[in-house]
């Protein structure tokens, strides 16, 4: 019976580790390879505080969570600068360093001998030693950690994490603070993993570096992958399978002398089969956001009076102005002394041949590139050094030529994530004001549905963005921009690749937005579309504004046309 209970304990501990790791990998797309480090810190902190300082429960657990959370924040820093394979290597190196510290800081960690004799977890004088007494504690901790992870994963913060996973720059372009998201999720994931570490120390009564090697991170990663990334229940399932599988294999009698190796071989084969036949994991990432949508069946084309577009007061003068912008890439001058004025209620076209510097100009205006010289003002306020998400919050939003939709999120969530001032984007609000966040999110969902209905995608709200047609994707880009409530909207080739009807639909939408006092700026190559859509043109070539004015007049200029078609 103890074996069954012991397996139950191990499933609980690994469920905590896998769900917390899933927040990093599945939700955030941060392939950090050091989860066992957080597990270890929780275990060592608990062992030391219990044995050396005699702290009673729950103080060692709380201290472990705080300490590991803080270390998680520190380890997040590399992820701000590197991603993908580089993040894997960086965090792998951090784990190797952590193991070296465990092995060599003998005075603190006991070195290779580790720390033995950690007493069982004791609550109100009752000791929870042995599998039978420990299992309820482990199960309760696993349930609480799962609840925390679920609460975060299904919150606006979790939605922002998934948006970041899909495309970091796109998430920044809808106002998400990438720094906060990464640091927050690292801290939270680390803190949750430390709970497993703390329990592990009490349960095994021994903490040593051998328990927290890189192979342990690989095991936890396997649990996440087998269960399904982005699905927290999948992580629990993955943990259960990968704890039960070797336990079950151990009951198969194999020839002694090679039994261990054969069992490992079978274990590896089963994992390979999982990946071959179910590469996305046993449980798919759930579609989110639909249950709370009160206007899910809202008819398309509903009037904006339903709240789709926040009306702005008409204001005189430039909404966004750039003066003397310069940008060089090594010896290449991409932008030179560029002046741009974007006025409310007007659609400005930025035209020019390929390589003229149009997209670079967008990147400078939206903070994705820092100008070497010049200044950018929004309603007279200097914005030159603001980061992209700060510019969105100030009122300047953009789209990308390659769309950068959050393809594995629902259409509704693509819009929902872009809505401004969501208190649920902050972890503190999620835990301190959960009901207010929930109410606000319900209201935001209604607003997102209204935007989708207005744009003509109401009936596709719960579909994944990757399932949309190209024209629908273009519409969704506009919907996402509308959701930001920004006054200045910059669209990079919103009409390219569309047929006449779809193109006209988007032009109509842009006109409606301009009519509601948005300052619109588009980059476009289709001259007919430009003529139809734009009120004002800026002709750009070799990084300089060569001319600007009424579209018809510029298009009649033979020199500009010659340069355009050369």
């Amino acid at each position, binding site marked *: 019976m103890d074996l069954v209970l012991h397996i139950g304990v191990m499933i609980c501990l690994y469920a905590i580790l896998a769900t917390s790791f899933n927040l990093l990998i599945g939700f955030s797309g941060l392939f950090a390879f050091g989860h066992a480090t957080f597990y270890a810190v929780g275990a060592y902190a608990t062992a030391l505080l219990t044995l050396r300082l005699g702290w009673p429960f729950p103080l060692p657990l709380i201290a472990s969570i705080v300490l590991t959370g803080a270390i998680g924040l520190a380890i997040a820093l590399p992820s701000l600068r590197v991603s993908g394979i580089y993040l894997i290597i960086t965090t792998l190196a951090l784990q190797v360093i952590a193991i070296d510290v465990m092995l060599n800081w003998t005075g603190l960690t006991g070195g290779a*001998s580790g720390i033995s004799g950690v007493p069982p977890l004791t609550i109100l004088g009752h000791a929870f030693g042995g599998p039978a007494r420990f299992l309820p504690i482990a199960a309760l901790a696993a349930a609480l950690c799962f609840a925390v992870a679920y609460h975060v994963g299904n919150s606006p913060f979790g939605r922002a994490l998934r948006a970041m996973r899909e495309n970091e720059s796109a998430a920044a372009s809808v106002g998400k603070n990438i720094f906060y998201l990464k640091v927050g999720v690292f801290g939270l994931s680390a803190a949750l993993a430390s709970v497993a570490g703390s329990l592990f120390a009490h349960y095994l009564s021994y903490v040593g570096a051998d328990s927290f090697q890189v192979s342990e991170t690989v095991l936890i990663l396997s649990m996440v992958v087998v269960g399904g990334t982005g699905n927290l229940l999948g992580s629990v399932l993955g943990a259960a399978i990968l704890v039960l599988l070797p336990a079950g294999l151990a009951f198969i009698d194999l020839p002694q*002398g090679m039994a261990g190796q054969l069992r490992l071989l079978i274990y590896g084969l089963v994992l390979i089969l999982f990946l071959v036949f179910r590469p996305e994991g046993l449980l798919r990432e759930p579609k989110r956001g639909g249950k709370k949508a009160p206007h899910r069946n809202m008819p398309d084309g509903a009037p904006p009076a339903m709240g789709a577009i926040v009306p702005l007061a008409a204001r005189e003068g430039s909404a966004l102005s750039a003066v003397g912008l310069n940008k060089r890439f090594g010896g290449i001058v991409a932008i030179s002394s560029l002046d741009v004025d974007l006025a409310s209620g007007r659609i400005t076209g930025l035209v020019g041949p390929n390589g003229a510097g149009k997209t670079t100009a967008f990147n400078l205006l939206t903070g994705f590139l820092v100008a070497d010289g010049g200044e950018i003002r929004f309603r007279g306020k200097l914005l030159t050094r603001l980061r992209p998400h700060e510019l969105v919050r100030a009122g300047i939003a953009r789209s990308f030529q390659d769309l950068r939709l959050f393809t594995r999120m629902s259409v509704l969530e693509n819009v929902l994530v872009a809505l401004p001032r969501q208190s649920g984007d902050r972890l503190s609000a999620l835990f301190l004001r959960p009901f207010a966040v929930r109410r606000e999110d319900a209201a935001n969902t209604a607003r997102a549905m209204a935007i989708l209905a207005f744009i003509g995608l109401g009936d596709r709200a719960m579909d994944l963005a990757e399932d949309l047609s190209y024209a629908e994707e273009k519409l969704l880009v506009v919907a996402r921009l509308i959701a930001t409530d920004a006054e200045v909207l910059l669209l990079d080739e919103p009409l390219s690749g569309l047929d006449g009807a779809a193109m006209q639909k988007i032009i109509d939408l842009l006109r409606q937005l301009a009519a509601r006092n948005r300052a619109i700026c588009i980059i476009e190559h289709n001259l007919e579309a430009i003529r139809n859509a734009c009120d004002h043109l800026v002709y750009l070539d070799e990084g300089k504004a060569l001319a600007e004015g009424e579209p018809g007049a510029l298009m009649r200029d033979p020199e500009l046309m010659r340069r355009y078609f050369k």
Partner: protein
Amino acid sequence: MTTNTLPLQHAVTDGAPPAPAKAPSRRSVASMLALAPAMAFAGRAYAAEPPKDPPVFRIGALLGLTDKGNWNALVMQRAIQMAVEEINAAGGVEGIKVEAAIEDHQGVPRVGVDAMQRLRARYDIQAVLLSYSAVGLAVAPIGEEHKIFMLDGGSVTDALVGPFKYLYHNRSVASVVARAVLTVPKQMGFKKMAQMAAVTDDGQSLIRAAEADWKAYGGEITATEQAMSNASNIDTQMAKLRNTNADFLAVWQFSPGPGLVMKRAREFGMKQPIIGVEYTADIGKVAGPHSEGYIFASDYFNPNASDPWPQRFAAEYRKRFNDNPEVYAANYYEGIHVICEAIKRSRAQGGDYFTGERIRAALLANPKVPSVYGGDMTFKPDGTGLKRVGIFKVTNGEAKFQNFAEIN
């Protein structure tokens, strides 16, 4: 290349009959006397009941069969199987067959706990052979809680000595072997020691024991470097050790680590004597000719000894595996025999005798058991086995017995 070697004052010829086992110390005798009433009571308590025989005596073993350095686990496994087969061929223990239930701990404490729980669940195991100290530290509390007799013939860490009363050791622990091998440089009048240790708790235990002993002697430790036993590049450590100009280099590592240390030390131009605590075929293979003159202390197992049991064991082992037995093979082979001997004694007391508690009580009542090393081995009250520790010197790739270490 020439190397300096230590003259050994008490060298004896290879194959000479080993000296009689060292008498127990005064403290050991006092401890045994203190325990005598309890032992006598334990004996009487079961005498009236007839023995309750199980259908089979199942003995567990936790080995790192799929650990990175699994060479010694594989040696342990075949030695265990050989012992079981021999005992059963001779009619078992009091007519009851013996079985070994071997589980893989992969060198990971958590997996070791899984395996220990599995042994309990499947076989209600009452006696188990342990290996690998980190795993031992994780599983020993389970054995302790459930009164399972545990015998460790692999690790030398001192961390396992003391806290667990059901845990016994039939390999000399760090405090014994380190002091044993340090008798050699002391005889030479050396003062400056450089150390290279494994990044394991065994390695740390050896450092602790060696430093305490060497400082008490008045010696100086010029440098201490560490590396994994299976490290492939130790050049940085060797460069540092060389630059300290120590009188000799102590290697507190286990197979295959010392092989690379010897090789690189000589290739770095170090001509000082090298001492250690293990020499195996793997070490010899890695070190090649650089092992010449290497001096090490180890539980004295002499396959060419004149005692019939070591001779018989060595011959059978060579016949079965085409290999010479060494300390791991001898200890785990011996481990099975120690447990079976304890079972036999426990059975003589009658009652429900096949329990970890009764097996331990049998050894407490009479801590002297036959040893495959020749003669008897005596368990001290802290669970460590008193064995003769030999000093060996490698000549032409072969470890040649020199003398028994004289340590207090």
